[in-house]
């Protein structure tokens, strides 16, 4: 994982270069497909950065869950945990936040909003802890368990909004609107931008500082760089540290879900998340797993997805095209990383061990599978 994380100028310049390239590519493909590429790009701009309203009400609102969940994904990835489950953790957080809003509807705002958000964090953590327990105790790959848990969470939300949490009339598959006191305040008058964005903006530097300057943060980075070395040379309980990162990451994704309910949707329903948890992976990767760089990365994807919706409205281009752009972005970043690594390798004059050393082949012969 450490190969992806490289601090420095490249964490800003490279994504920008890759993004420009993707936009050029997009324009070319749209042109070939017979769309009006210029009109499409204008719509993309208008819907994302083109006006204060678009920027605050669309881009930043959409960037908020991406930022929180992206930070959660990055934290786990930094510790060498493949948490693909941000989507499920986010939904768990959203469900819990809705549940608390309904149960404690009579509480004053000053108490209720924090409790709603805390419920989201807790639920996200619990949801991640299932995968973490399976990983630690039973050796189940977290890639697989988290994906399964995403589906379980999605259908559980379905059960909730068709049953216990369904609105009183029992017609629509969604919860009743949460009470005013459970809603996050708006922070820019006249727009939909809510306090959740400010919270996310505070979490990012806090996480950055924690990773950089605390002993626990150091342990996490050591485990992510090389768990064996961290265990032997640093006497670090690598499995424990990685597990903790996984759980905290799940909590952040859960917070993203709670913030979405409390700041945007004001209700729970099955299609609450248009795949925020999956986009969060891309956000984290493009931010090179660096909490500070994930902020512009999340805003960028918030803009891209908001712009795509405008593009669909104004130029008739399917908004799902941004999913392909996201994929191209990831592949380009990965490729650039490998390229940079291969260039650094021959004359590595001390910025840490060369990649080949980290990837040294294991000398112990592995046992043949029991079935074979």
């Amino acid at each position, binding site marked *: 994982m450490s190969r992806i994380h490289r601090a420095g100028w490249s964490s800003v310049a490279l994504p920008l270069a890759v993004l420009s390239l993707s936009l050029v590519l997009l324009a070319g493909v749209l042109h070939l497909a017979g769309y009006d590429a210029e009109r499409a790009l204008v719509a993309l701009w208008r819907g994302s950065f083109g006006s204060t309203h678009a920027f605050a009400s669309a881009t930043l609102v959409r960037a908020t869950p991406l930022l929180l969940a992206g930070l959660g994904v990055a934290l786990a990835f930094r510790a060498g945990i493949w948490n693909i489950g941000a989507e499920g953790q986010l939904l768990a957080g959203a469900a819990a936040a809705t549940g608390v809003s309904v149960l404690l509807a009579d509480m004053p705002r000053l108490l209720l909003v924090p409790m709603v958000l805390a419920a989201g964090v807790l639920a996200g953590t619990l949801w991640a802890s299932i995968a973490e327990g399976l990983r630690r105790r039973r050796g189940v790959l977290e890639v697989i368990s988290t994906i*399964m848990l995403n589906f379980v969470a999605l259908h559980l939300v379905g059960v909730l909004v068709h049953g216990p949490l369904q609105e009183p009339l029992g017609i629509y598959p969604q919860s009743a609107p949460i009470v005013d006191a459970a809603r996050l305040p708006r922070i820019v008058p006249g727009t939909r931008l809510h306090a959740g964005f400010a919270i996310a903006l505070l979490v990012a530097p806090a996480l950055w500082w924690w990773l950089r300057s605390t002993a626990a943060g150091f342990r996490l980075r050591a485990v992510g760089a090389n768990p064996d070395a961290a265990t032997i040379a640093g006497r670090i309980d690598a499995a424990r540290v990685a597990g903790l990162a996984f759980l905290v990451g799940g909590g952040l994704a859960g917070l993203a879900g709670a913030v979405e309910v409390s700041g945007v949707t004001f209700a729970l329903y099955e299609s609450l998340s248009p795949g925020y948890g*999956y986009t969060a992976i891309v956000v984290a990767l493009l931010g090179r797993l660096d909490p500070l760089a994930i902020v512009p990365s999340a805003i960028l994807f918030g803009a891209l997805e908001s712009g795509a919706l405008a593009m669909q409205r104004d130029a008739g281009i*399917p908004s799902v095209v941004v999913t392909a752009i996201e994929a191209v972005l990831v592949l380009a970043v990965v490729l650039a990383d490998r390229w940079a690594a291969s260039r650094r390798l021959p004359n590595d004059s001390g910025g840490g061990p060369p990649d080949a050393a980290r990837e040294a082949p294991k000398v112990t012969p*592995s*046992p043949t599978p029991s079935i074979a």
Partner: protein
Amino acid sequence: MIANLDALLEASVRTATPLALAALGETVVERAGVINIGLEGIILAGAFGALVGASAGAVGGIAAGVLAGVATAAVFAAFALGARADQIIVGTAVTLLATGITGTVYRTAYGATGAALTIPTVAPLPIPVLSDIPLVGRALFAQPAFTYAAYLLVPALWWFLYRTHMGLALRAVGEAPEAARTVGIRERRLRLGAVLFGGMLGGASGASLVLAQSGTFAEGMSAGRGFIAIAIVVLGRWHPVGVGLAAVLFGVASALQFFFQAMGWQLPYQLFLLLPYALTLVLLGVRRGRGAAPAALGQA
């Protein structure tokens, strides 16, 4: 009751078929030490390919589906094997890529709904004598050709993996690539072959969704089957027979919803939708998976 049971069995086999095809392909891929979570995207590409190719008949649909699957797998191979980039990240990107491209092309070519778009499904081919076996005959032997292909693949892959030199070399690459290299095994070539083979079966899996089940295409119609197939590989302990059985088990878990509906049970259907995933988690937890995993799985 008996009629319901018969229907349950039939639905189980039908549901299991695309899962088995994809999971058997992924078994070979993972045996070579590669984990391709782009399988989800491969199935989706296969389904879309089948839709496009079906204008030239069922065979055209299958061919186009397989081709689309192989092409998608080739993208994965270029980055994960060619550039030795991280397999999980590349797999995630490949799934996103397939989702984006199939969705965009579908909406561009067929409109937002594509409601008018139905293609004839391939009819079940009852096998004489076998399909007359009481109770299980029709469920097992009156299925579309895709199902029989899955039946045949189980022994064929077993034979390939455990009785041929190439199968041995492939497993060696998955267990100890360094050691395999020192005895002259062409590690990269074998891995490439495995990934493309996985793409072929993933594409066939997607084609079966369109041609043997729904008779149309829908955006994101793979609906997590690629991920489930990867879990099935783990449940089946990377062995063709185990994987085949795990796919059937998963098919039963999915088909239970029809069964309970037929029995008149009043439960929210979302509970049945989540049952297969929850069951997978429980089974993964009960069976220790990692012991049987290829030792070099996921390493560049």
